[in-house]
């Protein structure tokens, strides 16, 4: 498929006898915001881990930009353009905000020796521009020398997002970014996700906050017990009988 950025064909993941993900087909078109919802344990985070290469496939194929990701290790997938955030924030707590972004700063092509040297041996001056952008975007510029562990929860979430963006991804997988946020923060997050898409990044949003999902996504796919049970526009999903049955709603007005 020409417009597909990410394609999952019959993707499965088994843990012993448990089928965490069961023959899921999913297509993510370039430039869209796809929502991935489902009850706890339905396999959403597992799919993210499979796409990112942290877990091996038990079956099926994952294609990114038309190419099979096969057994590519996680760091290669990041270089190819896939980035993610974690459900439980996984920042480098003992590193500063700046350093967290610095580690992620990964140019898609690093062929030249000069750029290689600059990246690995250079002090902070060399990479100021490249990190400056995600730093500004996260609104944490004033706190760039603070240890990540000392940030507030909301700031940490913003840093996590900025760090994923610092890797200059084409596809961004957000794993429950709104968890623990209040309404104001969710509205800000909504705005941020739209701005990310406007810059040409495709977004897959895993969330339980239905208002956010309904508001910001173009399409939604629903998982239950590792299988995809529905797919369509937010409105279609809301009134889908199987979805209602599987997923006795977490908020959201009909």
């Amino acid at each position, binding site marked *: 498929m020409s417009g597909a950025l990410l394609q999952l064909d019959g993707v499965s993941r088994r843990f012993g006898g448990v089928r965490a993900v069961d023959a899921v087909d999913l297509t993510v078109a370039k430039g869209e915001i796809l929502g991935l919802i489902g009850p706890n344990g339905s396999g959403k985070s597992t799919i993210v881990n499979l796409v990112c290469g942290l877990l091996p496939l038990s079956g099926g194929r994952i294609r990114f930009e038309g190419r099979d990701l096969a057994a590519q290790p996680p760091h290669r997938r990041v270089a190819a353009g896939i980035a993610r955030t974690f459900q439980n924030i996984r920042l480098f707590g003992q590193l500063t905000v700046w*350093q967290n972004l610095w580690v992620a700063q990964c140019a898609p092509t690093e062929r030249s020796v000069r750029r290689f040297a600059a990246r690995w041996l250079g002090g902070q001056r060399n990479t100021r521009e490249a990190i400056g952008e995600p730093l500004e975007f996260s609104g944490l510029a004033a706190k760039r020398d603070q240890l990540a562990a000392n940030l507030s929860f909301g700031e940490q979430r913003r840093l996590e997002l900025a760090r994923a963006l610092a890797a200059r991804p084409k596809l961004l997988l957000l794993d429950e970014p709104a968890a623990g946020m209040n309404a104001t923060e969710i509205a800000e997050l909504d705005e941020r996700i739209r701005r990310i898409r406007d810059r040409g990044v495709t977004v897959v949003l895993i969330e339980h906050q239905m208002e956010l999902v309904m508001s910001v996504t173009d399409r939604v796919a629903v998982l239950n017990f590792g299988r995809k049970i529905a797919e369509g526009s937010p409105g279609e999903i809301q009134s889908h009988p199987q979805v209602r049955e599987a997923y006795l709603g977490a908020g959201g007005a009909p």
Partner: protein
Amino acid sequence: MDFYLGLAQTLGVHALLGLSAYIVLLTGQVTMAQAGFFAIGAYVAGMLTVIAGWHIVPALAAGSLVTALVACAIAFPALRVRGLMLVVATIAFGEAVRLFFFNFDYQVWRGEIQVGPLGGEGFRQIRYFPEHGWSTLEVMLFIWGWVALALAALWWTDRSRTGAVLRAVGEDEIAAQSVGVNLTAVKVSAMTAAGAIAGLGGGLYAHYTTHIEQGSFTLVLATFAIAYPILGGLSSVFGTLAAVLFVQGFLVEGLRFLGDWRNLLFGALIVLAMNLRPRGLLDAATATRLKRLFAGPGGAR
């Protein structure tokens, strides 16, 4: 005076040991391999100056290079085991190296005597420095020249992206992978660099003591090697240096009057230190406080 110069030489070589362990510990790998690297560097550099008649600098470089290659080679299988299994694997490596040299003979005739390693007897007559008229002071300065180089290199690394990446790997491998860090490359590189530094230290050690034997490269030495960065705290290379000065300078020398009971005290002191300051003498909190103290009010980075 000569006594203090000798002490300074020991401090320098131990500093290299500590720095070697420091860089690996940053990546979260606990390694007991430093004594083994030290031994390889010592024997190789020694054999090159004594048997092959090389000049000291290329001999040191070659010893360091060989050690780095060995370190690189064992880093790969070491990747397959994590955490505490790595401790055991590196202990076994260190012991294997020691036992290897215990059984290693390579002697040649130099005039009327035989020189070269002789198994359990060790490797005597590593007399490059005396034969070329180096004074104790010159040797000490030579050693510390290398230490300064290593310190500078590691300090600079700490401030660069490489330092941040090393620490990121040490903190959270999964997160590091997920932002594009090649774990294998980082861990193997760290171990290789550590091998180079420890190998250099070993070569210097062989030449200033003029006599090395397998009994010098034991688990105890490997313990000292990781004790320095752990005691000194991993936030800064200078913590390791401070720990070396404290342990070797103050404890080893200052408590020399205790004679044999000294080793006993070490063990007890380590246990005490770990209970009182589990994050090391110069942990992140202390380091920050020190920075603020020296930077003064309104001080910036």
